[in-house]
């Protein structure tokens, strides 16, 4: 049996009797409208210049066949989170039921150890002055909308996603939609080599975002320039 499958006492994925929330982001459905970012900002009064979730993109192809590819990002709520290990005062902690990685703002000393240790750059420092909140000069991050999920609501970004690219649910429940999606589709996670067991799964990330995926799935587009060059030099 692979050691990958062994559960540590901290891990909640596949553990009977506990919930393990996860998010599936179907990149085939993401249109880059940034509504998730706006909903998140509105939900948490996220200050200017920082984001709990963000949608980086890049432009691929050659004119006129160009398109944008998106890779929405947020805290991966890892099963083995390096930020929890790094925090000297246990201000960052993992909720055993649900697997949320949360931040205790009253305890955070702002040493930024968690920011340096996060493999996903998902954390940020809150500014010294805020209009509606007294939580300042500590580190913040996505909470998977813990306050909403505990009231049987989905996270704000999931609620607002117009293409239904984001799906949220309990991965330990075999009947949940996220479970079904992860089971039936090829999914990818960011930086799997870090062994953090992230819980944001992407569908289509390999297809859109890697050379291998483009060769495999978009063969024509990928080979267009080569075909043109070949035809120029080998007119029959």
């Amino acid at each position, binding site marked *: 049996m692979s050691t990958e499958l062994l559960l540590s006492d901290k891990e909640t994925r596949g553990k009977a009797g506990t919930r393990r929330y996860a998010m599936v982001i179907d990149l085939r459905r993401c249109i880059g409208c940034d509504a998730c970012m706006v909903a998140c900002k509105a939900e948490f009064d996220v200050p200017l*210049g*920082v*984001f709990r979730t*963000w949608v*980086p*993109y*890049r432009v691929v192809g050659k004119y006129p066949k160009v398109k944008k590819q998106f*890779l929405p*990002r947020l805290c991966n709520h890892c099963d083995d989170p*390096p930020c*929890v*290990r*790094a*925090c*000297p*005062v*246990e201000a960052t902690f993992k909720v055993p039921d649900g697997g949320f990685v949360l931040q205790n703002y009253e*305890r*955070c*000393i*702002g*040493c*930024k*150890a968690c*920011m*340096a*240790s*996060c*493999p*996903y*750059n998902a*954390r*940020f*420092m809150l*500014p*010294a*002055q805020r209009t509606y909140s007294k939580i*300042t*000069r*500590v*580190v913040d991050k996505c909470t998977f909308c813990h306050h909403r999920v505990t009231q049987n609501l989905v996270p704000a970004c999931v609620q607002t996603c117009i293409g239904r690219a984001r799906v949220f649910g309990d991965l330990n429940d075999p009947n949940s939609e996220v479970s079904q999606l992860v089971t039936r589709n090829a999914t*990818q996670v*960011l*930086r799997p*080599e*870090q062994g953090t067991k992230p819980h944001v799964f992407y569908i289509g*990330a390999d297809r859109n*975002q*890697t*050379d*291998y995926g483009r060769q495999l799935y978009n063969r024509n587009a990928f080979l267009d320039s080569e075909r043109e060059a070949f035809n120029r030099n080998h007119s029959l």
Partner: protein
Amino acid sequence: MKAKVQFLEVSGKGGYIGLLGGLAALLVIGLLSAYYMEHHGHHVTGMTNQIVWGMPHVFAIFLIVAASGALNVASIASVFGKQVYKPLAPLSALLSMALLMGGLAVLVLDLGRPDRLIVAMTYYNFKSIFAWNIFLYTGFLGIVLVYLWFMLEKRMNRYSHYAGFTAFIWRLILTTGTGSIFGFLVAREAYNAAILAPLFIVMSFSLGLAVFLLVLMAAYRWTERPLGDLVMRRLKNLLGVFIGAVLYFVAVYHVTNLYATRLHGAEAFILLNGGIYTFLFWFVQILIGSVLPLILLFHPTLGRSRSIIGTACVLVILGGLAQLYVIIIGGQAWPLNLFPGYEISSSFYDGVVASYRPTLPEFLLGIGGAALAMLIVALGVRFLRLLPASLADERVDPHAAKAAAAEPEAAAAQA
């Protein structure tokens, strides 16, 4: 029979008051800078959410690493039984504590919430290397304080060897802990190396001794006390060995990384095309901060001059600051490889080298920490009998002094 070494306080007249005033002014400027950054927040510094540790951390880590190394001289006397260094041991211990306090002050004042320092002292996550370092730093201060007391208190002198040995082991662990802060950051390609711990240990030897030599020379020059060539020759040769050791570890670190294909990008960034980081690495750290001091220290004629030794020490310190800048800031500037094979370019800093421009308050906070350390040393030597009245060769080691004096005579007789 060997003459007993007499320790005396320095007099508090003339230039001493000016020195205290200058250091206090720098300290106040550092405190004002900390207040400015604390009041306005993270954004007035050059630090960002990509480069989370900046100039203050370079100074803080420098002072902490140098603190460990400043205890070298005392360790050589207590642990390895070299009597020549024994008169220097109290100053070595004081300097070590002072540098650590200066470094910790910078570190604490740069926290997002320095007002929550009590939280850091009361809640511990023992899986965090940062929490371990809190123990290591406070423990080091306590142990060296006891060590200093054992050295100064006549009836406790017989225990000073044990305290010195404990301090020696503790400081090795302390610097291992400091290096491991970066060694344990496995998410960053430029960190994540076990060799960073021993690298920081040898860096501490080199930087600590350079600072110690400068303080020693300044103290003896300003108090007009004799400082013999014997001590200086030994210390500067030792510094040269430590500089060579740092170069060796730096070479091993980079060669090992170059062997791993996945690290070629990060290595090329530091060694070839990293702009300011490449310049600091090759020109300041290697050339100015290591090779040039080695030449100066081991040159047969230049190496005898006090001003040249002092210059070499300053260059070693500059090189050390550059080295820490490259390690700490350069390591964060190199982007995370979030999706292997996926080249992201976006307005969210993915796949691009993070920029960092240190601001004046950050720099002044670091200078303030160094000023605090020197202020503690200045006050320590004023009120405690830590400095030997004379470190002339015949006082420190009469036999060696005689032998050294006999050498030219014998040569003349032979001629």
